[in-house]
């Protein structure tokens, strides 16, 4: 690959939290302050053309694109310098991926396959933010723009085609998912917190986010109940009134410190009669348990204790790991597609120039000739169509040749040859002298200055050297 993509980084697997802290780049302004010399950003011809910096609590990664190899050394030096450290301190923790490997790594990270909690959704947002920062700094161009958009697409594909992110992997969220599976219609549900605790509050927050109607809080110390109730815009009820309130609520999250069960099956029969058998869901987070396991044997009551929920989470994690295999196949497929596409863009400028050049010639000749012939409008149109077809047909074979050969010869020398043969760069034709002396004078770099949506052209091999090589090859 002539265009190089390089990724240097460290993550929770390669570096401990101290190292990650020491080398975090979130506020370092690597791009904004020009600490990392990026061509696109500084509008100069530099080895690193484009760059993007991703820095989260679990990973720091720098994505680079340029035309030379060994971009990583420069990046690591700038990275260490930005944190006032020595590159040697950083180097042992850093992984470097080049080209296809870098693309694959980025796709995997974006799809949350490289995350600490497999399939967690935050990482994609973090990459999007990093990309926004890079856009603001002006440090991305053609390659990274295309790559990042592709990464977002791949992440979306993985999300929709595999179950990597489909099920809850925290106890409190697993409880909410179960509630959805039982009731379906969350906005008509009421919940009750019995007792308070970190996990119970977390579950209550998730329930609020899922859009339940209201939350009641019952606690042995009423002040605590009032405090919690105000936080969830709910209602505090006296602990003694617990059973009077139960017929009104659909979801019960219980986490008292009581030494024995607070709610038993025999208490529930009356409650269920009063609520006309509408289903109830008990989430018992307390140890020892607050809700007698017998309650689960009653119709229309579902009881999950902390171990049940942990088991659900464990199963979900196992399922995510299984799905990750499928996701990886998607990532690999998309990596291949992207690399192929990137290679083919090398040809694009030559193809465009070739067509433009022949069109220009045809147009010039046509304007000259058509002035003299007094053709009807219909004839003019027919002739113009014909000229267009001729341009297409003449260019058809050279373009096909280029595309086919490109697959086998990655140097792109045929593109260079074609440029010379058709004089696409509108230079004075090479004098005979230079041909005889071989490649003593390399032609200047071709194409527009770096940047823009059309990628820069590669420098073609001098024609003489090319012919020499062909001759040698045929011997």
């Amino acid at each position, binding site marked *: 690959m002539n265009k190089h993509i390089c990724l240097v980084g460290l993550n929770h697997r390669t570096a401990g939290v101290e190292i990650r802290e020491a080398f975090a780049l979130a506020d370092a302004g690597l791009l904004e302050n020009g600490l990392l010399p990026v061509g696109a950003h500084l509008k100069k011809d530099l080895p690193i053309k484009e760059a993007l910096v991703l820095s989260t609590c679990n990973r720091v990664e720098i994505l680079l694109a340029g035309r030379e190899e060994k971009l990583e050394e420069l990046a690591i030096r700038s990275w260490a310098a930005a944190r006032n450290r020595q590159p040697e301190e950083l180097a042992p923790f850093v992984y470097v991926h080049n080209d296809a490997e870098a693309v694959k790594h980025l796709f995997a990270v974006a799809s949350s396959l490289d995350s600490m909690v497999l399939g967690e959704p935050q990482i994609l947002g973090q990459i999007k933010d990093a990309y926004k920062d890079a856009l603001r700094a002006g440090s991305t161009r053609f390659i990274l723009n295309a790559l990042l958009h592709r990464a977002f697409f791949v992440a979306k594909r993985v999300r929709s085609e595999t*179950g990597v992110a489909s099920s809850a992997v925290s106890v409190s969220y697993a409880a909410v998912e*179960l509630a959805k599976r039982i009731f379906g219609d969350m906005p008509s549900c009421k919940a009750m917190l019995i007792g308070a605790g970190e996990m119970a509050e977390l579950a209550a927050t998730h329930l609020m986010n899922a859009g339940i109607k209201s939350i009641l809080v019952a606690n042995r110390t009423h002040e605590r109940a009032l405090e919690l109730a105000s936080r969830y815009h709910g209602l505090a009820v006296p602990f003694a009134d617990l059973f009077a309130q139960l017929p009104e609520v659909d979801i019960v999250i219980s986490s008292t410190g009581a030494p024995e069960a607070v709610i038993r099956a025999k208490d529930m029969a009356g409650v269920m009669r009063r609520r006309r058998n509408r*289903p109830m869901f008990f989430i018992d987070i307390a140890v020892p348990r607050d809700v007698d396991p017998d309650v689960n044997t009653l119709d229309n009551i579902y009881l999950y204790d902390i171990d049940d929920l942990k088991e659900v989470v464990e199963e979900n994690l196992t399922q995510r790991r299984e799905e990750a295999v499928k996701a990886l196949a998607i990532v690999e497929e998309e990596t291949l597609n992207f690399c192929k596409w990137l290679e083919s863009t090398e040809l694009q400028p030559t193809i465009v120039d070739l067509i433009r050049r022949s069109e220009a010639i045809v147009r010039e000749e046509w304007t000259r000739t058509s002035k003299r012939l007094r053709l009807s409008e219909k004839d003019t149109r027919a002739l113009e169509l014909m000229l267009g077809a001729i341009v297409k047909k003449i260019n058809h074979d050279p373009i096909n040749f280029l595309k086919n050969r490109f697959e086998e010869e990655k140097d792109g020398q045929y593109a260079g040859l074609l440029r010379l043969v058709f004089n696409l760069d509108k230079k004075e034709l090479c004098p005979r002298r230079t041909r005889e002396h071989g490649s003593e004078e390399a032609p200047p770099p071709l194409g527009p200055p770096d940047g823009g949506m059309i990628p820069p052209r590669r420098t073609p091999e001098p024609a003489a050297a090319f012919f020499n090589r062909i001759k040698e090859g045929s011997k």
Partner: protein
Amino acid sequence: MIFIKILSILVMLFYALGSAGVFWGIPAERYKILVLGKFFTWTGFALHTLLIISIILLNGADDLSRGYFMQLLAWCILLAYFIGWRLLKSGFLSLTASPLALLLFILALKVDKVQIEMPGTLKELFIALHIGPMYTSLGLLTLAFGAALLFLHMDRKIKSKTRLTEFDRGLPALGTYDRINHLAVVFGFPLYTLGIAAGFIWAPLTWGREGGILGSWDPKEIFSVFVWFLYASTFYLRILRGWRGRKAALLILFIFGISAFSLLGVNLFMPTHHSFGSLATFTA
């Protein structure tokens, strides 16, 4: 007529493929096959619609055989499923819909030549008050039957805390199935009552019967009344006593089982004026 024959064979073929897809796809958790099964079923349904219209257009509305009404019932049940499927977004419903449609359709072909004796008086009113409500309530009942199966499946899984498969995760919440059950009871029972009442009013008008209601001890009538009592108690238990969930689902399974037997078993194997073997009025 060759057109009708070809169309009938095509419909049967698609229903068969649909049933096969569903029966293979769901237990094996092969979702592509399940989707294919659903596609075949709905293609069959579209062709079936065409078939029902063409028979009316070619034969005229007066000369309809028992098979035609049987076909119409298969079509009505699929229509109910189609609506239920749109509401529930659950492919599991087709587990009962496609095979049921296939079974009824094959029976319909078998009894196609059996002409029916329609009442001479107020025939249109009879269709509107007997056949229409009966078919609608049967459609609702089969829908609730599918929903009840699903409810029991998911209820067991959630209660026993067993691991949910990918298929289970795609299913709607328990509450949705209970709402279908509610629908089938609240609307199905009055419709069934209307249909059965119309049947008993028209029966003496058509056959001139002595002995009053149930005087002929026709098995079909006995079964229908039995189902009506079951339906009525379900209505009472569900609406007035607040039965829900598992028990309500079991009741619907029971009612559906008896009605299916009444529809297929009685009509096929017992002497009745609804029989597939004799000349008599056909109802569900």
